[in-house]
């Protein structure tokens, strides 16, 4: 009697265990499927762009201005504009972001001002990018009178990627062991000498990774640049920064109207004429390839630093 009860219990228990194990396997499959949704989307998106945009790829596409006729339109003014804006962004954001990171990591005392700065860096990373556009429209374009120019756009994107660079700088400085600082201080170096001769050189790889990731983000940013009023149809190039006559360099390009790749793409995709959609897709491929290449470069630099430096 009691043995058969035990047998029934055992069978029930086995079934229970089996059910739970099946649930485990099922969740493994569901989890894998959910994870693949993102990956598959990425692949489908890329293939979709390739199918739509590939026919437009030619040398002419890169060397022509936008045009009323879809078949003749190109992205010359857009990629030149993107390069110029990125140059301004880099010149503005890198010194500022690295200096801010150094201050917060090496100099900042523990007080409420430091807390305030840290809270602001965290919060700025969460501000929607279009709000930076509104800031730039009010501040750079009108209050400071820079107009709807390359300079305004570059500074806007610089503010946008500042938190990325600050965080990357801080992380790579934090990885440097304290003994390096102590050794440098012990032989009489001042705080700035320690920072400039030791901390900065050792953290340069990490900082570069952050800068590249920040710039990759800036290349694709559209909303803030539209907000400051970038034109969508530009059939000329800004004045070259290097001139044939004295004084050989010119800052005129900083104040020139401009367009950038994502805005050109937005313009083409929002046209009702579907012939332009192929142009939009081809531009999308150019942007994606640029950002992916930059991200890959950043990952590679990070990997090499990890391999080379062993404290």
């Amino acid at each position, binding site marked *: 009697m009691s043995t058969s009860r035990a047998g029934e219990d055992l069978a029930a228990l086995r079934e229970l265990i089996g059910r739970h194990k099946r649930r485990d396997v099922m*969740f493994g499959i569901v989890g894998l499927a959910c994870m693949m949704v*993102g990956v598959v989307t*990425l692949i489908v998106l890329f293939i979709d762009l390739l199918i739509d945009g590939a026919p437009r790829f030619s040398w002419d596409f890169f060397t022509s201005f936008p045009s009323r006729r879809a078949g003749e339109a190109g992205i010359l003014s857009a990629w030149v504009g993107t390069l110029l804006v990125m140059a301004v962004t880099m010149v503005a954001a890198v010194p500022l972001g690295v200096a801010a990171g150094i201050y917060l990591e090496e100099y900042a005392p523990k007080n409420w001002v430091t807390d305030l700065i840290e809270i*602001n860096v965290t919060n700025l990373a969460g501000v929607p990018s279009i709000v930076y556009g509104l800031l730039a429209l009010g501040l750079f374009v009108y209050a400071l009178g820079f107009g709807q120019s390359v300079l305004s756009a570059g500074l806007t994107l610089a503010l946008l990627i*500042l938190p990325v660079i600050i965080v990357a700088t801080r992380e790579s400085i934090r990885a440097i062991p304290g003994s390096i600082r102590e050794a440098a201080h012990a032989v009489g170096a001042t705080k700035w000498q320690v920072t400039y001769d030791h901390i900065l050189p050792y953290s340069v790889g990490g900082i570069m990774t952050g800068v590249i990731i920040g710039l990759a983000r800036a290349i694709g940013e559209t909303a803030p640049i539209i907000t400051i009023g970038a034109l969508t149809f530009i059939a000329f190039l800004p004045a070259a920064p290097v001139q044939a006559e004295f004084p050989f360099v010119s800052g005129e390009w900083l104040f020139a109207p401009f367009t950038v790749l994502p805005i050109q793409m*937005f313009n083409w995709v929002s046209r009702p004429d579907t012939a332009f959609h192929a142009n939009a897709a081809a531009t999308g491929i150019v942007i994606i390839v640029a*950002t992916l290449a930059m991200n890959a470069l950043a990952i590679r630099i990070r990997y090499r630093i990890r391999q080379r430096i062993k404290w």
Partner: protein
Amino acid sequence: MANAHGAGAIATGGAALAAPTRFAHRRSRHIKERVIEALLFLSAFSAVATTVAIVAVLLYESAAFFEHVSIVEFLTGTEWTPLFENAKYGILPLVAGTLVTAGVGLAVAVPLGLVTAIYLSEFAPHRVRETVKPFLELLEGVPTVVYGYFALLFVTPLLQRLLPGLPGFNMLSAGIVIGVMIIPYVSSVSEDAMRAVPMSLREGSYAMGATRFQTAVRVVLPAAVSGVVAAFILGISRAVGETMVVAIAAGQQPNFTLDPTESAATITAYIVQVALGDLPHASIGYQSIFAAGLVLVAMTLAFNIIGHYLRRRFREVY
């Protein structure tokens, strides 16, 4: 050894100089240190300055806007027709559009992101995790204007086959694409929270005979809930502030509706629409985008405060 020798030589050289020069040198070095520290501080303080500038610009231009439009009408009006002859400024249609697209996005991103996080943290073999995570990071790196293209010209036609009669511009397809876009945010922050749960909790659960699934759902997830909530809030903020996808795929006509299959403008889409036009500086239409921006910032801020509160409420300390 060579270094020590060199340092010695410098020290002797220093002693040979006249004392005043040496002090002057030390003072100038001291001043240089101070100046550099001040410059570094100013750079760091630029973060605070940026926040102040954002708030100042939004408030300044909005104040000019609210001289013409009453705040009550702005916050309770259900018609947004700033470009008409008889302009009406009721922000509710734009807020509704924003919340509907963000809601659709969350309905996609929260379940997918959460299951992905549980899978990556508790189930996935090491190799799968290492292969797939970079792909998810790339998903974050795709520019939003490309997602807009994808929503309008790939997802919408696909949805039109399932739901005949779906308009070419609709919030559903924009919301779905936003959802896929923010999966990596939700999943990576949730995964970090789950991996931070101490191993001893899992071991305790396994020792009691629980399966992986039971451990993940009944032990790890509750323990990591504050981080998971933070991930959702991060996702909401992103979805509410997303601009290009909605500007391209959801349409730009304000429409007071909660039906995602309709076309409607969001706050961000309205700002883009005005910026593309030729509204003169200091006109009321120009000022209206700052008022709209103020509402957007207030919404993201509100979500962040709710998130902060929830995190504190559910925090588990080990």
